């Protein structure tokens, strides 16, 4: 009897120890698992926060190229998206992400690299509106299809190759196009500057056909101010936008809007980022021309310029031409600014953004005239 009780007691003790041990073990395993998820989320948030700081610094350091070593996150894929005028970037499959509704950020859709490249250029219309930020990587290759750099259309290609030292850029002729080799690149972008080899349903170079569709993209300049976007679809190019996208800029060297087209993967993200700039232009116009400049009512810096002359009769008598250029002439600054603001509002209503170029040129012309002898707007 005693033996049997002892046996039961020993068995019971072991069962008790096993259950208690399992419960305690499960408790700690639970904590560890929870901690692991929290740490991963925290890591992804930290990474995104650091990337955000890098972008902030890159945006304000105008015209400076930054090569940022990110080998710690080279296993992760950074994604960039822009919809409804709001951009977003973060790590694919992780919690951390940042919404960016202010700064236009032109980049491929995905970047997986050990070295990020950031660069910024000022966008002027005609005065500085904001800095455009370009983000790419050392393993993203830009291939210019431009046989002759002396041709006027290829001035942009020559400039691009000169100013992007350290980027992965190559220029090829039409004969080398079919033999293009991706080597170990993560993604390839072809820029056809008027050669016409990149076209809808046209063949993708043989060695690039093996790459994933979204890793091979292209643009072709229909004219220096119009661009078409393409994506690889199997063995052929697929045109993404039926109507060419106009480049809204005043041209010249380091054309920020044109560079944006080169760095954007598709027309949607390009236009989305350009819209951010047009929103900002609306407010910059109000700084220069006042809140109601769209209705022809002068304010802001323009009003201060007018008051400078009108409040001092001795100056006004000597500088009639100044006040004429600022306020009264048919091509005055006041009228040009008002027209510019109306064009911005029309552009934001998706009517037409091309008129912005002309109104910006008008402001620039008056400002140049004023520079000779009067107060200038910018």
């Amino acid at each position, binding site marked *: 009897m005693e033996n049997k009780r002892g046996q039961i007691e020993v068995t019971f003790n072991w069962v008790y120890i096993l259950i208690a041990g399992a419960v305690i073990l499960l408790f700690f395993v639970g904590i560890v698992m929870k901690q692991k998820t929290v740490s991963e989320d925290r890591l992804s948030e930290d990474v995104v926060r650091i990337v955000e700081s890098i972008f902030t610094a890159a945006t*304000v350091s105008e015209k400076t190229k930054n090569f940022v070593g990110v080998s710690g996150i080279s296993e992760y894929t950074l994604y960039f998206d822009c919809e409804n005028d709001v951009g977003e970037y973060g790590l694919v499959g992780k919690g951390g992400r940042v919404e960016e509704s202010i700064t236009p950020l032109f980049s491929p859709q995905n970047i997986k690299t050990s070295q990020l490249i950031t660069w910024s250029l000022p966008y002027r219309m005609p005065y500085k*509106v904001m800095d455009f930020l370009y983000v790419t990587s050392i393993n993203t290759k830009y291939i210019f299809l431009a046989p002759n750099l002396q041709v006027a259309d290829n001035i942009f290609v020559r400039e691009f190759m000169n100013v992007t030292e350290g980027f992965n850029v190559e220029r090829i002729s039409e004969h080398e196009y079919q033999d293009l080799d991706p080597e170990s690149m993560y993604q390839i972008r072809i820029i056809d500057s008027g050669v016409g080899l990149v076209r809808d349903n046209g063949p993708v170079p043989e060695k690039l056909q093996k790459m994933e569709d979204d890793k091979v993209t292209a643009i072709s300049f229909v004219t220096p101010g119009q661009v078409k976007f393409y994506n690889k679809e199997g063995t052929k190019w697929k045109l993404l936008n039926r109507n060419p996208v106009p480049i809204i800029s005043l041209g010249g060297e380091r054309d920020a809007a044109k560079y944006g087209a080169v760095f954007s993967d598709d027309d949607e993200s390009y236009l989305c980022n350009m819209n951010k700039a047009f929103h900002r232009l609306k407010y910059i116009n109000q700084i220069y021309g006042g809140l109601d400049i769209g209705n022809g009512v002068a304010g*802001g810096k323009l009003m201060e310029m007018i008051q400078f002359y009108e409040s001092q009769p001795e100056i006004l008598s000597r500088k009639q031409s100044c006040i004429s250029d600022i306020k009264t002439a048919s091509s005055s600054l006041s009228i040009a600014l008002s027209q510019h603001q109306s064009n911005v509002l029309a552009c934001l209503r998706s009517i037409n953004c091309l008129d912005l170029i002309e109104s910006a040129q008008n402001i620039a012309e008056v400002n140049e005239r004023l520079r000779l002898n009067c107060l200038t707007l910018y």
Partner: protein
Amino acid sequence: MNRKAQIRMTETVAVLFIFFVLVIFGIFFYYKYSQISILEKQQELLGMRAIDTTLKILFLPELSCTKGDAEPEDNCFDLSKLGSASSVFGGSAEHLSYYFDIFKYANITVHEIYPDSTNSWTIYDKPKVIMEEGREIKNWKDYESTFFIVTLREESEGNPKYRAGYLEVGVYS
């Protein structure tokens, strides 16, 4: 036998009691440690936000001194733009919403030091408040200020005049 079992039972209860006391002590210690590190992290983030905001303002096209198509002058604010900046930054709900995305909860003031130290321009002020019975009630825990020396350019024909000043950026947490 009963006595032996009672002693064993008491032993088990005592062991369990000490075990749980240790677990509770561990949880309490971890909770306190987490609280302190969260506060430290918040302070660090607030400081970073203050610096980020200052950096953004220093290069803001809405305020910076321009020279035609040339690069803007560093650390210089155009006085004629400063005058209209506050009306644009806080002009309407749409303006406020746009500039809130840039500055968040902050107070941005530009002070003139020389020649007239009484001049100052508050160009953006968005404290963290809540509305209670129609009254605004302070709802921030911390306020971090940063200062930066700037020049203030006064437009005049051909030969702009410069004043000395500083930028004060305060951020609310």
